[in-house]
């Protein structure tokens, strides 16, 4: 009975919200700040991908906050799961194909990951997507050889320094007399690989940070013992 009332409630709520949403003018957004950003982004940040210029320029501190959230959840997961990794002997070793495929795929995925990160200001993609692929590249050996361990020390070094360099790039702009996280070194070469000043550097930091965080999260999950 409780679930029925719950479903009715959810349905009613949905219809109410739908009625409210139908008052919105779909397909014709006001774009007060959207069109401004669209007009100024190439000059102000030098990125052809305007979403990138919003993520790393106009709303860079959101991205910093987001990296911090990812860091916070990785640290919290570390606190929760503890550092005793009993690398489970119960896991089956990956077959020959998985193993050799893993070692073949690793450089390939690293290349793809960095390619996506470095082209984030030109094409769709960037630090987050590239970072996930980097994490997957690091994760692959774990799947292929359950005995293999991620190098936790270097991982936490990358974690720390990638996040710190995002902030330090922002602080560097302050030293130059500009605002925190203001984009710098803009050349007038829109569409080129080396065009968006500090933005690709920021995306590199984001990519490494995301990759390291996710890799450590995944390795923690895979290295905790399964019940029975």
């Amino acid at each position, binding site marked *: 009975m409780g679930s029925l009332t719950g479903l009715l409630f959810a349905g009613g709520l949905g219809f109410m919200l739908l009625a409210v949403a139908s008052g919105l003018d779909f397909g014709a957004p006001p774009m007060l700040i959207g069109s401004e950003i669209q007009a100024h982004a190439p000059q102000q940040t030098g990125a052809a991908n305007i979403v990138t210029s919003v993520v790393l320029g106009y709303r860079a501190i959101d991205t910093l906050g987001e990296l911090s959230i990812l860091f916070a959840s990785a640290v919290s997961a570390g606190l929760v799961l503890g550092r005793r990794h009993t690398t489970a002997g119960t896991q089956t070793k990956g077959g020959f194909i998985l193993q050799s495929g893993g070692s073949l795929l690793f450089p390939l995925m690293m290349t793809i990951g960095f390619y996506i990160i470095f082209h984030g200001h030109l094409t769709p*993609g960037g630090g987050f*997507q590239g970072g996930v692929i980097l994490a997957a590249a690091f994760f692959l050996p774990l799947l292929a050889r359950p005995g293999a361990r991620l190098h936790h020390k270097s991982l936490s070094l990358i974690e720390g320094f990638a996040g710190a360099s995002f902030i330090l790039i922002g602080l560097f702009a302050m030293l130059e007399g500009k605002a925190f996280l203001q984009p710098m070194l803009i050349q007038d070469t829109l569409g080129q690989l080396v065009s968006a000043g500090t933005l690709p550097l920021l995306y590199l930091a984001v990519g490494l940070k995301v990759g390291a965080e996710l890799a450590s999260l*995944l390795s923690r999950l895979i290295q905790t013992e399964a019940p*029975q």
Partner: protein
Amino acid sequence: MSEIELWILLLLAVTMLSAAVMVLLVKNHIAAVAAASVVSLGLALIFALLRAPDVAMTEAAVGVGLSSLILALALRRLGLWRLDGSKTKTNLLEHHVENRDG
């Protein structure tokens, strides 16, 4: 938005909503995780249709790939990785008792 896009959209919407209901109702936990990743996949396709390639890529990488991986790993560690549907939610009490003994 063209006619064909409208139909694709309708198909995606129906798939996603029914997958979302499945996540809650299906007995098997693996199937529930699979249904959740179907929702993410549909979402990524909708994002692509809505001219949001960046978001679509992120949703595909994070929502479909990473999130499903995390959930699947969690299923293993939680001891819910069972392919047979007989272990239902109501039976959970039963196997935790045998776990505690073991």
